[in-house]
């Protein structure tokens, strides 16, 4: 047995889970190899120390505090509320009543119109978009987000948030590159966000995009897992774009992340990485799920 083979089996050796013949071979190797013997001692010591740890239990007082927070959060349960409302709206009886109500409302509107003239043109902007100023192109779609996605206090007024889409567009490398060349949200990120913003806002913007994506029928959890995978080696990246579409005929999540330039000449997020990931392959093995990758830099 050589050192490499011995070291590979040291944990199992320490746990006593090797077959006796392999244990004997390790014993023989350790007797003649001081380097591996020292490693075996450290593995043995850490094993003993970890085994001595008692389970950690949450106290009842702490549990009560957390339970109270869960109850406080309960009224805004996104999925339950939307699922229940959606189910209710789908019932035939509901649809019949809704039709009747709609007819009455139309009739009332016509009558009111006769007496008051046509209403002035208005634009409905949600309270959130008024507060955060996110109603322009390249901004998030406030109408598709429910209140619990807003994370008050995190978004700053007038700044861009991730653009989220679900489409049937079938991209290839060239068309995707062209689309990102002109992407407005990329330019807005470069102009408005720095490295510090990426650190501070990354989690919030990932959540925000995931929730919005979920509301559009995408898999928000899958998107979060992909972002976590992509950013595990380079965490200073801020989600700016997400589209569920096709890439050369395959189902794909197109994920745009804004990042500082590699040269370190600017702290602005003037670089964008575009990851095209296959959701089907990601579940089996993330390493084989990357269909395409683009890196673009915004000229200063």
């Amino acid at each position, binding site marked *: 047995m050589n050192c490499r083979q011995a070291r590979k089996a040291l944990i199992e050796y320490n746990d006593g889970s090797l077959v006796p013949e392999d244990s004997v071979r390790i014993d023989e190797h350790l007797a003649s190899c001081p380097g591996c013997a020292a490693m075996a001692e450290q593995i043995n010591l850490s094993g003993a120390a970890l085994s001595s740890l008692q389970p*950690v239990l*949450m106290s009842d007082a702490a549990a009560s505090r*957390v339970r109270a927070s*869960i109850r406080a959060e309960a009224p805004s349960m996104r999925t*339950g509320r939307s699922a*229940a409302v959606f189910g209710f709206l789908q019932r035939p009886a509901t649809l019949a009543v809704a039709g009747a109500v709609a007819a009455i409302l139309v009739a009332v509107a016509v009558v009111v119109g006769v007496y008051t003239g046509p209403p002035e043109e208005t634009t409905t902007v949600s309270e959130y978009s008024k507060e955060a100023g996110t109603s322009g192109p390249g901004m998030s779609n406030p109408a598709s987000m429910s209140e619990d996605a807003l994370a008050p206090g995190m978004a700053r007024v007038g700044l861009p948030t991730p653009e989220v889409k679900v489409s049937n567009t079938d991209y290839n490398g060239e068309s995707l590159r062209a689309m990102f060349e002109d992407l407005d949200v990329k330019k807005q990120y470069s102009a408005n966000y720095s490295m510090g913003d990426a650190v501070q806002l990354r989690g919030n913007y990932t959540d925000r995009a995931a929730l919005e994506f979920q509301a559009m029928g995408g*898999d928000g959890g899958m998107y979060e897992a992909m972002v976590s995978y992509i950013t595990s080696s380079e965490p200073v990246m801020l989600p700016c774009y997400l589209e569920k579409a096709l890439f050369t005929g395959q189902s794909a999540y197109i994920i745009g992340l804004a990042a500082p330039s590699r040269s370190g000449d600017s702290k602005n997020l003037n670089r964008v990485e575009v990851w095209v990931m296959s959701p089907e392959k990601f579940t089996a093995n993330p390493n084989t799920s990357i269909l395409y990758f683009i890196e673009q830099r915004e000229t200063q």
Partner: protein
Amino acid sequence: MCIQIGRIYDVAVIIRAMDKGEDEGRAGQDDELVARARTGDAAAVEELFDRYRHQVFSLAYRMTGNPADAEDLTQDVFVQVMRKIGSFQGRSSFSTWLYRVTMNRSRDFLRRKKRSPEMLSTDGEPGDYLMEDRVGTVQRAPEDNAIASEAQRLVQEALQQLPVSLRAPLVLHELEGFEYHEIARMLVLPVGTVKSRIFRARLKLGEILEPHKEQWS
């Protein structure tokens, strides 16, 4: 559930393995609760909290080393569960998904804390957050308890000295009892990387604890 005795497991480890919720009966009950939670039933989330609070808290505590932070993270995790239960598609068991959410939130928390040293942890008496003992643990004389407590403090401090990339797989494998392939899915890493990180973590932990090795002799 079958527990293979390949090493000397103490009572606590066996209880922990049973607590993981991987036996079929428990998983079936989880499925029912998850289905109710998806329809907006907040009581179902509370039941899930009662079933898993110790596991989530324990993992958060082992990752952060601070009981107040662990409580905050536990709260954060279950709020996330309420918000995102719709995205849980049942490809893995609920308990595995919950551990993944806990691990992701813990890692995010530690990254934020590293970059923002002003983000102080709440101080408090450990007894405010931790339950001291449970049925099945060995009764000890007071002086033995003091030694055990010192040893546990040393191990917890040593865990905090490991980089998060090594601490996470080590805690999941050695303290929470997950298999390599389960950790690989949870942390989105190849199985070989998980094994090698656990090996490096064990070596590093042994190196850190070397000056106190008489505690475990």
